[in-house]
């Protein structure tokens, strides 16, 4: 009976999707001969595919429902348990460390290069995690600060010849100031209103960079940004890439260190309190404005530093790299990975940046696969890959 029922449902789904995809999948107007091409095979494909996929879909949903029935627990997941146990954590970290160290030597420059991209996004993700994951402020214009960092390095280098190592903290600082400037007027806004205003801010920065030629060289961008120097040595491109990789690894470790410390500190707790309940948070004596601004500024600082590295990595920047899509992707890394969780955000960033790169073999199906993965991940694991777990305290008494 149920089997019959399931088949009936799948059959209906199949018919529905054949109807749905009919004009776009089946009909194609040939503009040369002005004839219509009827691609009936596509319809058959859609029908058969929808039939089986809808079965799988319902099966997985039922399975998820069963799993989801459990009360929300604070039982740590596998990852946390492994990391929590010293006897697993230490060897795991050692292996990871060694792997990271030899990575650029084991793999080609291309692999190192995309790993650099991925690590930049890890930094950005962790930075945005402060704003969205911890403080609960939905920021859709995070890329603005990234752009500020990148342009700081590019322009300071171009005009004053400042090197990477000076530009790195300076870019971070400047972006942090922008974070304050943006944060101040939007303190009163909540939720989606905040999201749209930050989105607007991101666009404003990009448009200014695009239009103000005298300042930013407009859409033609700034080229020949130097990679970080190493004691004046003359490095080959490959060596420079490897060097940049190591710098980035160090910075990511530093970021993890900082965020880890922050989230279990007085500051971090205030952020989470703000996210959970703004009014109760204030009633606990926490200054809402200050706490929000702090989150904005710190998050922006990290984006700024990410931007400096980004400029050093690509050696050429123009406003096209700082569109709203970048903000969206960074937000995806945070939510997909698991809001507030460091391990989660790192996995999210690696997944989202490496996936499209390795999906290059799918060629034209790359982006459609990417979109599908996003939807599926959220439907079947809405909390993200790794959910955040709060620190536990022990008392000897």
């Amino acid at each position, binding site marked *: 009976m149920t089997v019959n029922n399931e088949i009936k449902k799948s059959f209906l789904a199949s018919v529905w999707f054949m109807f749905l995809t009919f004009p776009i999948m089946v009909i194609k107007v040939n503009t040369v001969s002005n004839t219509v091409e009827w691609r009936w095979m596509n319809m058959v494909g859609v029908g058969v595919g929808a039939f089986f996929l809808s079965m799988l879909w319902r099966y997985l949903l039922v399975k998820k429902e069963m799993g989801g029935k459990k009360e929300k627990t604070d039982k740590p997941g596998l990852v946390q348990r492994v990391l929590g146990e010293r006897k697993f954590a230490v060897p795991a970290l050692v292996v990871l460390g060694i792997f990271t160290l030899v990575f650029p030597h084991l793999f*080609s420059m291309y692999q190192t290069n995309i790993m650099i991209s991925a690590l930049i996004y890890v930094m950005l993700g962790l930075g945005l995690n402060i704003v969205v994951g911890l403080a609960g402020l939905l920021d859709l214009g995070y890329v603005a600060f990234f752009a500020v960092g990148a342009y700081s390095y590019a322009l300071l280098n171009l005009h004053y010849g400042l090197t990477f190592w000076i530009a790195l903290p300076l870019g971070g600082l400047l972006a942090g100031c922008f974070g304050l400037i943006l944060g101040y007027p939007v303190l009163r806004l909540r939720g989606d209103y905040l999201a749209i205003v930050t989105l607007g801010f991101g666009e404003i920065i990009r448009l200014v960079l695009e239009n103000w030629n005298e300042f930013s060289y407009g859409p033609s961008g700034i080229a020949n940004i130097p990679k970080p120097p190493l004691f004046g040595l003359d490095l080959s491109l490959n060596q420079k890439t490897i060097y940049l990789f190591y710098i980035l690894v160090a910075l990511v470790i530093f970021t993890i260190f900082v965020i880890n410390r922050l989230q279990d500190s007085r500051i971090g707790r205030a952020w989470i309190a703000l996210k959970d309940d703004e009014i109760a948070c204030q009633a606990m004596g926490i200054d809402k404005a200050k706490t929000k601004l702090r989150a904005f500024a710190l998050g922006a600082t990290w984006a700024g530093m990410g931007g400096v590295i980004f400029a050093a990595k690509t050696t050429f920047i123009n406003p096209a790299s700082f569109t709203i899509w970048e903000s969206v992707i960074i937000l995806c890394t945070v939510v997909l990975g698991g809001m507030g969780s460091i391990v989660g955000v790192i996995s999210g960033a690696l997944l989202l940046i490496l996936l499209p790169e390795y999906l290059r073999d799918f060629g034209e199906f790359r982006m459609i696969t990417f979109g599908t993965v996003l939807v599926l991940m959220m439907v079947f694991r809405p909390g993200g890959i790794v959910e955040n777990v709060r620190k536990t305290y022990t008392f000897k008494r």
Partner: protein
Amino acid sequence: MKKMGKLFAVLSTLLFTSVALTGSCFAAETIKLGVPGAHSGDLASYGLPTVKAAELVVKKINANGGVLGKQVELLVEDDVCKPEVAGNSATKLVSDGADVILGHICSGATKAGLGFYKDAKIVAMSPSATTPDLTLSGEYPNFFRTIAHDAVQAKLQVKFATEVLHVKKIAVLHDKGDYGKGQAELARKYFTEAGIEVVLFEGVTPGAVDYSAIVTKVRRFKPDLVVWGGYHPEASKIVSLMRKKRMKTAFIGGDGVKDDTFIKVAGKYAEGVYATGPMDISKNPLAIQAKKEHQDAYGSDPGAFFDAAYSAALALLNAVDKAGSTDYDAIIKVLHTEYVDTPLGKISFDENGDATGIGFSVYRVENGAFVEQK
């Protein structure tokens, strides 16, 4: 012991793959033609025709026995026209052992990719990157292009506007992009030098739902000519709206507009629009053939930069063939010295890397086709 064996196996596999990934040093079984460009996102329609051109050229060459007795393989990489992605595509192509590169599409992405190719000693040829300093700066000896750079077009537009149209004042509009704004600025520069007043210089937002405000503004300034820097979709929106609003002001665009899609999209409103573009090739047998190949294979007319891409693919593979190897210096030498027959005509490349033999002309849309103006 068994464990050790497994570990060893894993390690050696890792090593092997990494060597294989780095190893363009192995004698390649095929000649690899890298095709990086925008294949998804908002600029995909400028990148994909190049892939199709490369596919057609390679199919034909492979059917005739390939180059140097080897089959040609395509390595298609999407760069979404973004510099940072272009850097990754470029390193991927280098790692995968591409021998020559057909791309990138956008100037920004090209700039980002060229450094990697230069370092790896690979020749790159773009069908569409028109920023002048890519070739004129002399920084990239490995860069070539089968399209004239923007300064050539801008000068031609000035000449045509002053000598044929006798304009006194113009409005310059652009799409704020890398390509469009670059063109517009050169136009402003050369028109001003020629003593023509530029009454309006503004960018419009590509993809906006409506341009009536800017069109109204153009009407208010009463220019004799609107010079457009940018691609054809925005151009056709603006022209259509101008005509719908009963404005008869002349309109001239660059090679981003000289595209049959423009006429198709703008329809009757396209009539009378001027555009500069590569010399008329519609009589060139190779061009006719290329177009036919595209129609047969894909059931539609070729898209933007198709002919330039087709020619670039031919020029690159011809250079490999003539050079007798995929050696960098040999290929460059051939490109600079030998002429090759392409849909664009018989072309070679000057010391900067710009194609010679591809002249530019001004066209006017007459009865649904671009007609060369003498």
